[in-house]
């Protein structure tokens, strides 16, 4: 059981680290991967994570209006919303993809996000249970 959480350098990693400093506990199935900004996350990361066995993929970024790079978190949300709709069309569980906001000084926002992710990673159908012999490299033809 593993869920990938992409955290942005600022609020995402900040709140995850604050949760650590305050010794708040959350489920170890949460695996954090750092990106400079939520806007860096694209569909290829989400699909890569699911095809490698993730149960849920989420992005934790800055609050809307507080993105350090001024607005890139909004862009990430739109890409993820399209993916959620795609999942729905195929019968997979759209709740397994999400975008959460967090505040760097507050550990409890991250822990709340983590709990929600763990809950949702058990719902509905997970894509890629049928893993085919895909040998496609990222970006390659």
């Amino acid at each position: 059981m593993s869920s990938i959480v992409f955290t942005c350098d600022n609020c995402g990693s900040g709140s995850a680290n604050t949760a650590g400093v305050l010794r708040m506990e959350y489920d170890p199935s949460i695996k954090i991967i750092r990106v400079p900004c939520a806007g860096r996350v694209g569909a290829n990361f989400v699909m890569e994570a699911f095809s490698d066995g993730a149960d849920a993929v989420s992005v934790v970024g800055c609050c809307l209006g507080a993105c350090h790079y001024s607005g890139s978190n909004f862009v990430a949300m739109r890409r993820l919303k399209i993916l959620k709709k795609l999942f729905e069309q195929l019968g997979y569980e759209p709740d397994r993809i999400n975008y959460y906001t967090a505040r760097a000084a507050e550990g409890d926002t991250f822990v709340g996000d983590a709990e929600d992710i763990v809950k949702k990673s058990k719902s509905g159908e997970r894509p890629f249970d049928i893993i085919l012999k895909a040998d496609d490299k990222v970006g390659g033809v």
Partner: protein
Amino acid sequence: MVDEPRIGFFICHCGINIADKVDVKRVVEYAKTLPNVVYATDNMFMCSTAGNDLIRDAIKRYNLNRTVVASCSVEQHGPTFMRILEEENINPYFHEQANVREQVSWVTEDREEATKKAISVVRGAVARANNLERIDRKRIPVEKSALVIGAGVAGLNAAIDIAESDISVHLVEKTPSIGGHMTMLNKTFPTDECPMCSISPLLNAVNINSNIKLHIYSEVIDVSGTLGEFYVKIRKMPRYVDEEKCTSCGLCADHCPVELYNEWDRKFGVRKAIYKPFPQAIPSVYTIDDKHCIRCGACIDVCEPNAIDFDQTEEIIEVKVGSIVVATGYDEYDPAVIEEYGYGEYPNVITQLDFERIVSPTSITGGRILSPSDGKIPKEIVVIQCVGSRDEQIGKNPYCTGVCCMYGIKNAKIAKDQIKDGNVTMCYIDIRSPGLLYEEYYKDAQERGINFIRGKPSEIIEDPITRELTVKVEDTFMGKMLELPADLIILSAGMVAPKGVGRISSKLGILRGKEGFFKEQHIKMAPVNSSKAGVFLAGTAQGPKDITTSVAHGKGAASAASILLSRGYIDKDLLTAVVDLNLCIGCRFCEPACSYGAIQMKDGKAEVNEISCGGCGTCVPSCPTGAIQIRGFRDEQIVPQIREVLREV
């Protein structure tokens, strides 16, 4: 040309912080099995000299060209380990940090789970390490000039210090005069000095300093660019008085027919539509309040130097600066929301700032303490502390400002000194008087006969016939309910973030904390840095503090702002976007994705301005061919990390 990776893996025990939950020996053994890891070991404290030497020796002995350290967060010790690589002539970005403390050992209870999670984090870090690249450092010239927003005591100190470092300063202040709240005060604790006397030399110094350009009665309306190259638009509002010609004789105000409550005097005094906010205002010129001026022309008639000019319009000035200091100050909390205290309803219930404008020598009473309702000398004075502070309820603030106790005591003492036959009572929850001379100040107040009652008043009642006020409070030491008659009640209302600060925050792109003040980068180690590079915080803009601390904070911000500019250049690590021209098809979809405007078209293909690029990576997914990538966070570097983190052990 990249060499074959030779990775050294080091895991830190961090005392028991990591080793308590993560089986570090097992992680070391596991790491040895990962691709290109040629050396793996553990140490009690990797950040110590011994730990650092361990890395140095391993680099030399095993010819390492990359390091992975599993330890605390990269914010904490990333630079420590990167420096070691630099000293060994390896590009510092060949270091990868795996966070197994804040994100593993400190948040996972079960030892087996923590170890397994640490292993997956390490696997991901090694996968990234195998794909790291050189990041070069570029020398960028910076604009050797700074912007200071706000001319209160912190902003003024910041401006002077920066100017004295031979860096030009644009000082912007939105009220008609510099000086801020300090000019409104009567005395300052703990020495009971006159604040106008303390600050006057500073006001004059700022006024005459050739390196400081004053933009008074002006506002910052737009900020763009980055550290070293900020483009700022300042709107100067028209005074309708020519600053060069006005001699400050005051005849215009004498003849102006429009009278208003003077906001600077907390509405006790009056001013005219043409006014100077206070006698020692700098610049020493008059201003016409356009909202209330009726354009009767009386001032024009009496102005000998012909300084009145109704043709003035607002001016927009554009400046380029290298760094910005935000010193926008605070507002006093408005206790009107606490209806049981009747502020705004009962004229004899005032705040501490209101009191300053009664007892100050330049006040409408000439410094005599009089009850606002009837102008008589109050004999029963009650001071209430913690009004609106230390309270989780809605409309109030949970924090303690740390200054109200001291200025509450100060004004209680002043009142007691002036009204010898009066009774001064202070209702408090705790008295906070930290630091040298402060506890002594409190003791002195007790010795002068001020009654200290430990209890928070529940309400202030007005007798319907006599209109006299009574303060109901429980003396928690005696266990008795008291009803104190009061001719004057002074509320110690705390400090809050000033109105309009949200707009500045979004123009500058810096974060505010949930209390509303600007958020510092690190509460202990970086109190003057904002959340954005090149923008610094000075004074109460960052949080409640007294004047001493504000001055120190402002000087700290000045130092930080100047250091950046002192060399005339900064070195930027190029963790920026880069375009593969073979893949770029010139569709231009990356341009709007960049919030810095760092992408332009050149010869039909995309080109990135490395100085403006902030390295966020939002452009990367917007490219349909994968032509644009971010150095250090390329698809080839992150995707293997995802794969390895998820692989079952």
